């Protein structure tokens, strides 16, 4: 049932040219150089340190690596991180397909 739902949503996104982050609960990530990263649609903080921020997403996790991290703003679904960002990595659980 869930799979069908997902398929319908994906089909709708493709055919109707709706933004994917709205229809499919995907994260929307905006980066300004290495200085800022703005993440919408996250599901909570898993780990936070000066060099690393691990966020829970609807599917899988997002790992941001860098230096001097400061969470400027944090709201239920939004997060603004400041620092020197080196890497943004998606971590997929098990068999889910890679992006």
């Amino acid at each position, binding site marked *: 049932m869930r799979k069908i739902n997902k398929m319908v949503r994906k089909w709708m996104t493709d055919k109707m040219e709706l933004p994917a982050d709205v229809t499919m609960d995907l994260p929307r990530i905006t980066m300004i150089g290495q200085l800022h990263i703005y993440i919408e649609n996250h599901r*909570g*903080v898993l780990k*936070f340190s*000066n060099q690393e921020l691990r966020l829970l997403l609807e599917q899988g996790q997002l790992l941001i690596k860098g230096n001097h*991290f400061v*969470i400027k*703003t*944090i709201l239920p679904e939004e997060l603004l991180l400041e620092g020197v960002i080196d890497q943004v990595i998606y971590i997929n659980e098990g068999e889910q397909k890679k992006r």
Partner: protein
Amino acid sequence: MKNSWTNTFSGFTRIKVVGKYTELFLNRCIHEKVSIWHIRRVGEETIVCYVALEDVKRIRPIVKETKVKVYFIERKGVPFLFKKMISRAGFVAGMVAFVAILFILSNMVWNISIEGASPKIEHELKQAVDELGIKRGKFHFLLPSVEDIQMKVSEKIDEATWIGVTLNGTTFHFNVVEQTFPEKQEPISPRHLVSKKKAIIYDIFVEQGQPKVTPNDFVEKGDMLVSGFIGKEGKMEIAPAKGKILGEIWYKSNVSIPLVTEFSTFTGEKKTKHSFSIFNFSIPFWGLGKIEFNEYETNEERHRLNFLNWSLPIEYHREVILEKETFVREYSEEEAVDTATLMAKEELMKKLDEDAVIKGENVLHQTNENGKVTLMIHYQVIEDIAKSQPIIQGD
């Protein structure tokens, strides 16, 4: 999301969170909609962040739940600033007093400068200004307006053609333009005296020259009265004629005066209202209450308050309400004739030279129509009719 400046108004604190599950603490905070920001990890089990003052109490259950310890490091924002100010009341009072004194001093007269006046006039002007109450240390809003000062000062000092008054910050600036009288010219050039009006000669008095007329002669305008040629025939000399030729001139004047006239005068009763206006919003503070006069006239005066160089949107506003009284003046016909003749005479005197004499007057015609008395009066006036006419010498 709240702006940082709204946070400074409502106040916020910096907290240190120590514990194993700091991330959990963060997630719980987000979930409870506790606004936290500027999160930074400082140690293995320590993070530092800001929390809005209004949310501080809501942290307590989350702290218990997640088994972390919270330490308050800093307190920032207006509420804490107020607390500090209260604890240092003397310092704050000093600051307020400073601004207040500066404000008071900005509205005082500090200097009176006079420009373009000779020492004599400068002295006179200084006295006149002093009489008006413009002295060092007086408040601007208690003084008459600049236009008024200019008018009064100009009236008092006749020697000056024009006195410009400006209020430049705290300085009254008087710019004087002095009158320069043309030097009196002695009539040294040879001239005749001729008549300037149609008249009958009344009397002649010649200092120099040859009189050409005798009393009771009739002269037209431009007729020769005293010739500048003197001496016997053949030995003619030219001299400036000098003398006084009095002629009798007839004037006719028409006056009409209504029998009933309405007048309004001030009774002397008055009421003064004081108010401040901020951005055109007026706040009366003295002279409240209704005006009990039936008829009145209002004189307004406005003064802007200054702070250093800037004029504030605050105005001091003084209103003087003067009671008026209307009364009806009714003349009988006789009285009307009397006043009319008096008026006509005054009017005539204005037109004539100073040394002219009204010798006789006759009412020629008198009507009383539509509540108006109309008179036609004939005057016989004796005045100097001599006018100089230079002799242009041909070579």
